[in-house]
């Protein structure tokens, strides 16, 4: 589909809240099967960008092209049905339902043109729950499980939608180092088995570096650098963004 197998194209996307430019003319492409890390300090515009791409916010300017289709003006549910989904920074479980029911909803709805009748959807949901390792908790109410399990549940839910592109919005937030390791392994495993394309949003460098093929760095709503993890980590603009001008000068002076 499309040249160079580009599945998602963000074209000069902007979102202004009055005078505040939360996202300022950001452009980048995502190839099918890639994991693209989207990083930047807090407030850089990563989540806003995600909201724009998935139709949750109306855009001020720019376009979002998914599988050669301009999805810029579609509603969130339509975009999800096309195969572009996201998880939430602050998990949004379907309260009052069990873990299994949550994943089932993802399986019933989600991308079009699959078997979305109850029987097949239930089967798919159970498989995904097994895949992420939540089988023992599947009948628990979402109000009764821990945060790491909630994140697993939301991950399972979005996987059950069988997306082609998935925005993972700061999945690591609130997890301890062991849980971060576990989550990273799970994401890698799932990516391999399902052939997903992932936009991986984080503001913790370490989590993103090991897993991404390419990285896009945002700062104050603008894209400041794009490239391999190696290139990005040594870029002075990035260092400046995260650690401030003085440190960047020091690093550069040291050569």
């Amino acid at each position, binding site marked *: 589909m499309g040249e160079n197998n580009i599945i998602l194209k963000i074209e000069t996307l902007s979102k202004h809240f009055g005078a505040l430019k939360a996202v300022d003319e950001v452009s980048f492409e995502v190839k099918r099967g890639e994991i693209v890390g989207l990083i930047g300090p807090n407030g850089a515009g990563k989540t806003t960008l995600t909201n724009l791409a998935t139709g949750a916010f109306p855009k001020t300017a720019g376009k979002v092209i998914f599988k050669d289709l301009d999805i810029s003006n579609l509603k*969130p*549910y339509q975009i999800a*049905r096309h195969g572009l989904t996201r998880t939430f920074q602050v998990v949004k479980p*379907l*309260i009052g339902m069990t873990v299994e029911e949550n994943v089932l*909803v993802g399986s019933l709805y989600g991308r079009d043109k699959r078997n979305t009748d109850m029987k097949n959807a239930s089967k798919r949901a159970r498989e995904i729950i097994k895949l992420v390792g939540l089988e023992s908790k599947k009948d628990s109410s979402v109000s009764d499980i821990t945060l790491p399990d909630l994140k697993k549940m939301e991950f399972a839910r979005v996987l059950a939608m069988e997306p082609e592109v998935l925005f993972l919005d700061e999945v690591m937030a609130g997890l301890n180092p062991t849980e971060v390791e576990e989550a990273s392994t799970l994401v890698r495993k799932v990516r391999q088995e399902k052939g997903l394309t992932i936009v991986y949003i984080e503001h913790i460098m370490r989590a993103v570096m090991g897993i991404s093929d390419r990285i896009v760095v945002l700062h104050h709503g603008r894209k400041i650098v794009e490239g391999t993890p190696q290139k990005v980590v040594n870029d002075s603009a990035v260092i400046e963004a995260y650690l401030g001008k003085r440190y960047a000068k020091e690093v550069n002076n040291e050569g």
Partner: protein
Amino acid sequence: MFKNKQVSIFLIIVGIIIFIFLPRFLSGYWVRVITTIFMYAVISQGMNLMSGYMGYLPFGNAMFFGVGAYITAIGMGKGLSFLAVLPLAALTAILFSILLGLPVLRLRGHYFAIATIGMSGAILSVVQNATEITGGAMGTTLPIIDKSPEVTYNYFYLAMLALMVITSLTVYLLIKSKLGFGIRSIKANEEAANSMGINTTYHKVIAWATSALFTSIAGALYAYWMSFIGPDEVFDIMIAVNTIVIMLIGGAGSVLGPIIGAFVVSLLSEVVWSAFLEYHLAALGITIIIIVFFVPKGITGTIADFIKKRELRLRKKVSV
């Protein structure tokens, strides 16, 4: 409700059979009381679908009751038979729910509830003032059935019973279906529901149209039963209040809730009325306050909690 599905079905069928034969043993007064209970159960199922399952409280839902009643009255006044007017009444109500629903269902919680009250009030005013068509504030009559009172009572008793069973069954099947999951997701987290590919507007409209359908049929039957209706009566805000109390007592989010609630509320009213004639308003008010504080999940909710807790306790014992 019970673990064994077959037991549940058996009990329900037994229950229905008992209800069918009950009128033989009851006075006309009680037959009428129970008919009204069935009717309220239907209206409450409609409200419960919207509020208990979907999280949108249509405080003014009685407007569909009134619409059903008046279309029936007007239609029969023009010579149509009841069975001919019934689909018209239902269709009108459904149309209203779709036309009014599309703009109003995107309002969040409080606003939606209030908007429905406003609509109900506006329709009431129109009915009160369109005297030529509706008979105005003084009400209008319907053709009286040419049979003995006893036969008439039984006829409407059975009709309301049938309506209650059909409504409850429909809601039950709907909730278990894929559509039902979509509806429940709206209450659970509407933003998440949208992001998962659920067309929430479509689901909201379907839910409200379903609720309007059954509520309007109840209104149609009521009009034919009473042979005389007035606007204040069929658009009365107390209908909404009663159904909310029924949902609270019965327990929201369960198909049995509205039925149990309707029975309990009706019996409570009978007791309160005869015991507290002069203070019945205060008694009703205080009763509501007590229920809201001590039994917020209603009867079915509290029982469900109790069953769950007992299961957890048993599970703990086993795993040790």
